[in-house]
């Protein structure tokens, strides 16, 4: 739905643009903004905004590495950003053009500096965790009331998965997020860069593979909300969006999100400007618009993801700032881990492992 509306916005933006009107092209994740912000940006700045969406870092990265994608602002995740910066895909941000730069939250920017030293190339848009989306009613029905809903054992223990298969389980199609989760489950370092350690994830995944209905990184929102599936490994805000869609539909589906107690991946989606952006000045205007405390808060209130903007916090609704699934408490925060990008040779092994798990070959 959001995809359709986004495309529509893009078409409307295209068709109404006068011959010499200034434009800015933004490429962001699907289901990741309050669309009213897009029109607000256009009215405030008079710049035509063309907003496209993607649902995988890989697609974005290929566009960045090929060059000439024509976007002014893109939003890769930290590990991908780090490699793309190395490849020379981005230009340094000009903070002089970002009057709202003071709004950033140091707790987050100190963490994103791991991927982008000094945050020279990027600014955090939103961040979240990768965890478990649960249809509470169905899971209790299948596994009983004491189901381990906040543990990775729910999805990595074949005994549980065998039963859950009857009501449907989706996994993210993102090896760089699922493999660290498996490593956390078996007590290894989730950020391991050792091929032998990573190989240990394969038997665990192969054992539960028959019970996974689908590997997909965006379909699970609707599938959870409609009650088509009962468990998904997914992104925090997406699961919470599913919770809201189910509540709106009043279909009796009750969705909850848990960051697993064994540890959960914390990731950061970073706004950056491609080195060959057609309109870097407008790109900075867009980033500055998002950095505005009220705008950023509106986006977070809409999509249920935490942001890296300290000043926005006073505008956040209680549902967002008060929910530990979105803004984790200190104890959960301690339990979150981050990962680093895989080197080329290791990446090949990881993809191969993933293909082997998914297709059995």
């Amino acid at each position: 739905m959001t995809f359709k509306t986004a495309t529509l916005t893009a078409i409307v933006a295209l068709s109404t643009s006068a011959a010499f009107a200034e434009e800015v092209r933004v490429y962001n994740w699907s289901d990741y903004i309050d669309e009213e912000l897009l029109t607000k940006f256009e009215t405030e700045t008079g710049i035509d905004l063309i907003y496209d969406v993607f649902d995988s870092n890989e697609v974005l990265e290929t566009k960045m590495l090929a060059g000439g994608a024509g976007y002014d602002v893109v939003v890769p995740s930290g590990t991908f950003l780090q490699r793309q910066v190395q490849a020379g895909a981005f230009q340094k941000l000009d903070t002089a053009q970002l009057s709202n730069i003071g709004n950033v939250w140091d707790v987050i920017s100190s963490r994103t500096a791991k991927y982008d030293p000094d945050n020279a190339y990027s600014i955090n848009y939103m961040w979240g965790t990768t965890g478990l989306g649960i249809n509470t009613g169905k899971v209790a029905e299948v596994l009983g009331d004491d189901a381990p809903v906040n543990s990775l054992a729910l999805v990595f223990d074949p005994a549980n998965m065998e039963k859950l298969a009857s009501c449907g389980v989706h996994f993210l199609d993102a090896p760089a997020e699922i493999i660290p989760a498996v490593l956390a489950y078996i007590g290894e370092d989730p950020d391991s860069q050792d091929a032998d350690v990573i190989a240990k994830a394969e038997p665990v995944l192969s054992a539960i593979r028959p019970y996974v209905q689908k590997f997909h990184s965006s379909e699970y929102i609707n599938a959870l909300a409609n009650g088509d599936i009962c468990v998904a490994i997914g992104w925090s805000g997406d699961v919470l969006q599913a919770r809201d869609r189910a509540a709106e539909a009043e279909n009796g589906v009750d969705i909850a999100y848990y960051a697993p107690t064994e540890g959960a991946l914390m990731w950061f989606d970073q706004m950056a400007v491609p080195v060959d952006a057609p309109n870097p000045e407008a790109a900075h205007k867009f980033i500055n618009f998002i950095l505005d405390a009220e705008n950023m808060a509106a986006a977070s209130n809409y999509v249920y993801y935490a942001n890296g903007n300290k000043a926005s916090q006073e505008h956040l609704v209680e549902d967002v700032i008060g929910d530990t699934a979105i803004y984790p408490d200190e104890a959960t925060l301690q339990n979150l881990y981050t990962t680093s990008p895989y080197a080329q040779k290791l990446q090949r092994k990881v993809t191969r492992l993933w293909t082997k798990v998914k297709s059995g070959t």
Partner: protein
Amino acid sequence: MMRRFLLIATPYFWLLALFLVPFAIVFKISLSDAAIARPPYMPQFDWAEGIRAFISQLDFENFVFLTEDDLYWKAYLSSLKIALISTVLTLLVGFPMAYGMARAPTEWRPTLMMLIILPFWTSFLIRVYAWMGILSNEGYLNSVLMWLGVINEPLVILNTNIAVYIGIVYTYLPFMILPIYSTLERLDGSLNEAAEDLGCSRFSAFWLVTVPLSRPGIAAGSFLVFIPALGEFVIPSLLGGSGTLMIGKVLWEEFFSNRDWPVASAVAIILLLILVIPIVLFQRNQQKQQEAEQ
């Protein structure tokens, strides 16, 4: 003189610009090494170093790599299998339709032809998405069957190879029907009458006269389905499951997940070599048909 030169040069220019140059670029990338750069492979051609230094850095390593991992062979074989089965299924569905069209009263034919072509007015992608709506567990097909009481549990079709076959047959059906129809339409009806006069039953007249005479159309239709089905990516990725192994998907993973353009290019080159055989056969078939007509 000039006109003649242009006449001869145009198809060669076409071949050069739309096939040989892209092929050479892909082939060159397949001999390079992956790197963290933009674009993500090395070496890049540098005039200063000269062409010899550049060529000396290229090697066939990526092709050797493809033979070392059985994933690639399995994917090629599985694609061949899926393409072959889909072609046969499309033929089985398409031939009766083409036959019916050719036998229909002349005034109906333009309408029937229109019905075959009409789906092209809608985007291919939207039509494949529509199949997702039809085939899913809560989709129209299962709702109707459950309502009729034919089944109690929904049939799992979406995300399996069956859905891929349905998608390919549906999408490529017009490419099968149209060439068969055009040969059947031109068949001389008196040949069948003669066969029946000589003691053939209607069925054996059909089998011994009509089918062999429509062979050029069957061959053309089959190639038009088989060749694109072999490298198909959209249909298996939307309708197929994670277990559907096709070379188009492997190519996608090499390109996007591994960002290994050189290996992806090597996979593409081999796919092309596999396709050259049916394409040459198709060309021959077309040529023979033309000669027969003259």
